[in-house]
């Protein structure tokens, strides 16, 4: 399989805000207590990589940056069918913003050598910036296809479509390339039993696991520690505050006779100075 592709998939562990655990009554998240999960957008990226590998041959390296417990998302990625997992873990990475994160992940991708395609999700559910992918591409000096919806591979050429505002673009590019995968691009599949079984086995066998999951730090990926973490991040969060509740101002109509309530409601709206009746045909 000499022509197999070397693919990196970047995934992140995020708090599961749909779970009640660790979510405070006011809607803020207690990150220490919160249940964790793979960033949902990253599952599409992983699945796309698996599809490509199954059709075309190759190897999938999953990279995640985070504290030691984030290794759980690498185990899960193996269960889905990834080949190897790399945790970029280093205390000095704490508080990295998107630019610093992109630098660290770029170094991790370089560490893996000769990567043909880097897959990322569209964005994360916790940071929600969609910036890290393109910033890694900039540092690598490679093109990117963001919002990628479909892709075909011929040799080392990627033919893809990407979503743009009001349409789609068909693109063609030679590898290496970074692709951010749209959530409409693939239909998520369940984990294959065989992969889950293999992963569970490996987790019980130190030697087998040592061949699949790796933890690397900044020095191993030859990253400059002054360009990550708090010191290497050009932005900081200055202040946060709760989004003001406008509670109490809503005029609620409820009653046994819906027709009557609707009449009252529309009458009220028609007198409202915000003037929306001009749009009624």
């Amino acid at each position, binding site marked *: 399989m000499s022509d197999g592709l070397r693919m990196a998939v970047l995934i992140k562990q995020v708090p599961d805000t749909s779970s009640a655990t660790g979510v405070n009554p006011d809607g803020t998240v207690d990150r220490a207590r919160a249940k964790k999960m793979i960033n949902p957008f990253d599952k599409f990226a992983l699945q796309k990589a698996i599809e490509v590998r199954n059709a075309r041959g190759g190897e999938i390296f999953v990279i995640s940056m985070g504290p030691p417990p984030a290794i759980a998302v690498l185990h899960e990625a193996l269960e889905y069918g990834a080949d190897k997992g790399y945790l970029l873990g280093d205390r000095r990475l704490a508080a990295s913003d998107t630019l610093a994160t992109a630098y660290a992940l770029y170094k991790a991708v370089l560490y893996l050598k000769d990567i043909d395609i880097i897959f990322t999700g569209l964005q994360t559910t916790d940071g929600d910036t969609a910036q890290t992918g393109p910033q890694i591409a900039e540092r690598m000096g490679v093109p990117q296809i963001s919002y990628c919806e479909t892709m075909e591979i011929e040799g080392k050429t990627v033919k893809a479509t990407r979503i743009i505002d009001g349409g789609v673009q068909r693109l063609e590019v030679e590898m290496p390339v970074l692709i951010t995968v749209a959530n409409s691009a693939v239909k998520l599949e369940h984990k294959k039993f065989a992969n889950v079984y293999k992963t569970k086995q490996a987790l019980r066998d130190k030697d087998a696991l040592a061949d699949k999951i790796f933890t690397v730090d900044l020095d191993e990926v030859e990253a400059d520690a002054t360009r990550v973490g708090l010191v290497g991040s050009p932005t900081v969060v200055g202040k946060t505050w709760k989004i003001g509740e406008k509670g109490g101002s809503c005029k*609620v109509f409820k009653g046994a006779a819906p027709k009557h309530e609707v009449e009252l409601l529309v009458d009220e709206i028609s007198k409202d100075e915000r003037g929306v009746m001009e749009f009624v045909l």
Partner: protein
Amino acid sequence: MSQYTNIIVIADQIQGDLRPVTMELLGAASELAEKLGVKTHAIVMGSQISHIPEVLIHNGADEVYVVDQPELKEYSTLTYRRAAITVIESLPKPPHIILCGATTLGRDLAPRIAAYFETGLTADCTELDIGDYVHKGKADPNKTGTFNNCLYAIRPSFGESLKARILGPWKNPQMATARTGAMIPFKTDTTRTGKITPMTVKFEDSDFRLKVIETVREVSSDLDLLKAKVIVSGGFGLGGPEGFEVVRDLASVFSESAVGSSRKAVDSGWIPYSHQVGQTGKTVRPRLYIALGISGAIQHRVGMSNSAMILAVNKDESAPIFQFAHYGIVGDLFEIAPLLKEQFKQAVPA
């Protein structure tokens, strides 16, 4: 003269049409520029766009840098990146602030520009302001200090009911992207004048690695959500794709209307992603937003709470949407929506 350099807005145009977000950014930029005592500049890139600089000036730009070359006919990351970087580097000093729309174009381009200049970028801002900042970092003593007139890039924080003010005063340009619909556009003034500076960009072969084979525009019967005056949206309460018939039917009673959706309905495959309103969809600001069977989770709310009037229909009286809607009606949407349609029709004199 101000001690600060100017503010730059990167215009977002598709085939000669400026996107609404550009006018909104010019509005926000003009306010920031006034506070700083500087000018609002715009960069516009494309092919055969000679009519655009004037429009940008009418909408708040004081000076427009134009790169009008055939290579820029369709958006491509690397060619637009080259053009934007060339213009910015031609300035005597880095701009104080660069703003870009959080459109598919801006979200593709802005991160690359920020990484190129090794500067901070805050995504999807809903407010921008200017203010001072005191940094008392113990872990990063090199950054400690008092900074005046920094960009306050304000954005809702991930699925939480929080807003965060992001700062990056250590390096210019300070960059931010903003969602469409989040800011108030500049009041168009066709008598406004400004300077138009044509620029020529020399591309490198490597800028054409990404080949645009074809750009297909959707011919959609649905009016763009971003332009609609009235949006009728459906959520999980619709129960299935057929539920959107009720939504469309109610929308049909309004002119300039569009159909929106919550994320849950999109994730369930009931309606395409392009209809999604919210944190991971579009931010809208219509005159009237009607939410049918939408609970009003924060992820939806951040995309529509700036609507002039919000009307919620939900059978659950305790749904969060009743916390911030202006009008609400508790009941079965399948019963209420057709009644609303009839009543709205009746309420206007024929």
